[in-house]
């Protein structure tokens, strides 16, 4: 194709709608959702309970059939397949569940072999594949245990191994860590990241925890009431959330810039001067420069650091700082412009930020 914009997306959702009619008003669980997930990417979808995340994810392998719209996975339009072809396509899409959904009557090995059995893979081959997968998820010792004899984290490892058994290129995770404690969550997340790297998978995961997104996602979409309200690189969405809902989500992880009560304790401005509260976001190379002291010198301002933190998302460091600037209004404006010219994100946050 002459105007091919780049590699073909691994997952492409186009104009998905899904309506549930219960008692009372019909509910649009999906209200026109379009998304593209690039190959090799870990793509997160966040949103409050009931936002439509699970419905969207289940549309990717058509566990839920959208009322309208197109689902394309690895170039194949899933929504136009017949039953038999759809079953074949589903074998190429692994799925991991919040409540593991393991077969209680089968051992760890039996569970991992299950999708292969469904696909008619011969026994010897199944066993070889299980032997490969057990060490990948660190469960060699638990081969013959039943799910009831495993911890939550171990169960999810079985769930992941099972999802990988038929060598899918796509992995769907529905709240894969929501039933786990924070430490186990971290283990499972790093397992997902490492299999993505090793097996060249594309991962679409949904979660209501921004910490999960921050930990492993490359890009993220925020859903609300069946729509995607914001989408972008995790770093960008976290450092410059555009939507109020996103800001609330992000603040769960990033925290508030100005701790409550600080403003009241700040000294007042001198006569003829002003006090402004600025939020400064450092991202990229400028984060290492001593911007504050230089701005203070250049423009003759008194710059008071109210709060600040330095963190990283993925490999990208960022700093978020609240400054109380004292000085003539014109000088504050010039300093602000100078910082912006350096690539910093400066916003005035008023006297009583929420």
């Amino acid at each position, binding site marked *: 194709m002459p105007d091919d914009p780049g590699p073909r997306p691994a997952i492409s959702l186009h104009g998905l709608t899904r309506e549930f009619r219960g008692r009372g008003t019909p509910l649009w669980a999906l209200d026109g959702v379009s998304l593209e997930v690039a190959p090799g990417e870990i793509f997160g979808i966040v949103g409050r309970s009931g936002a439509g995340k699970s419905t969207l994810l289940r549309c990717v392998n058509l566990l839920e059939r959208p009322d309208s719209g197109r689902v394309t996975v690895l170039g194949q339009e899933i929504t136009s397949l017949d039953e038999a072809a759809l079953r074949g396509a589903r*074998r190429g899409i692994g799925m991991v569940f919040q409540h*593991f959904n393991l*077969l209680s*009557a089968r051992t760890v090995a039996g569970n991992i072999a299950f999708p292969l059995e469904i*696909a008619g893979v011969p026994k010897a081959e199944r066993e070889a594949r299980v032997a490969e997968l057990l060490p990948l998820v660190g469960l060699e010792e638990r081969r013959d245990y039943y799910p009831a004899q495993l911890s939550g984290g171990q169960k999810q490892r079985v769930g992941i191994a099972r999802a990988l058994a038929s060598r899918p290129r796509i992995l769907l995770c529905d709240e894969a860590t929501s039933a786990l404690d924070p430490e186990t969550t971290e283990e499972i997340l790093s397992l997902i990241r490492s299999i993505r790297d090793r097996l060249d998978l594309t991962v679409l995961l949904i979660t209501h925890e921004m910490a999960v997104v921050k930990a492993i996602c490359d890009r993220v979409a925020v859903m609300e009431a069946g729509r995607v309200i914001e989408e972008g690189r995790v770093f960008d969405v976290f450092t410059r959330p555009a939507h109020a809902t996103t800001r609330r989500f992000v603040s769960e992880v990033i925290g508030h810039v100005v701790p409550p009560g600080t403003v009241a304790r700040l000294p007042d401005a001198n006569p003829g001067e002003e006090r402004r509260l600025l939020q400064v976001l450092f991202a990229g190379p400028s984060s290492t420069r001593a911007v504050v002291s230089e701005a203070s010198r250049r423009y003759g301002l008194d710059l008071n650091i109210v709060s600040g933190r330095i963190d990283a998302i993925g490999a990208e460091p960022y700093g978020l700082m609240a400054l109380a600037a004292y000085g003539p209004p014109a000088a504050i404006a010039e300093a602000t412009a100078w910082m912006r010219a350096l690539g910093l994100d400066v916003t005035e946050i008023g006297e009583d930020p929420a």
Partner: protein
Amino acid sequence: MIPWLPPALTDLLIEAAWQTLLMTFGGAVVAIALGLPLALLLHTTAPGGLAPNGWVNRPIGLLVNAIRSTPFIILMVAIVPFTRLVAGTSIGTTAALVPLSLAATAFIVRLFENALREVDRGVIEAARAMGATRTQIMTRVLVPEALPGIIAAITVTLVGLVGYSAMAGAIGGGGLGDLGIRFGYQRFMPEVMATVVLILIIFVQGLQSLGDLLVRRFSRR
């Protein structure tokens, strides 16, 4: 053989015990063979099932309920023409197997259905996500996951059949219950009645213990 009974009666007792076994296990075999597919059919065609279909589900459900609500003694008489058609006769142990199987099937279908309903929906969803066919989901997920419940249902049905088979004496089915009535009650031989009851107690206890053992063996929860 049994010291407190005349030898002739011992022989009768052995024959009756054999007839009871035949009616109980025969009825159970038919009930399982018909009941499991029917329960799977009811389960899959129920609203929210793998293939909801009211036109299949409702008539079968209705028939099952109709049989279940008919007292066994009436059912036995009511289906005599059908029994003659299937067994060639309406009298005797083989003939008694027909109403027994029918009643046991209707009984076990609902128990099986309950056991299938207990299977975690998430597991079925996972199988669907793997590309399993409906048949694969039934045979490799639903039945194995419901196995403890299925075994418990079979046990309950077997015990029930022991009781029902006593009534089959009314159409010449024979069996321990029939012997107990004829000798213990009608000929005033309380020792025969006591022996029959004793054997039935041991029999039912044995079935129940074996059933419980198997349920435990297959429970992995």
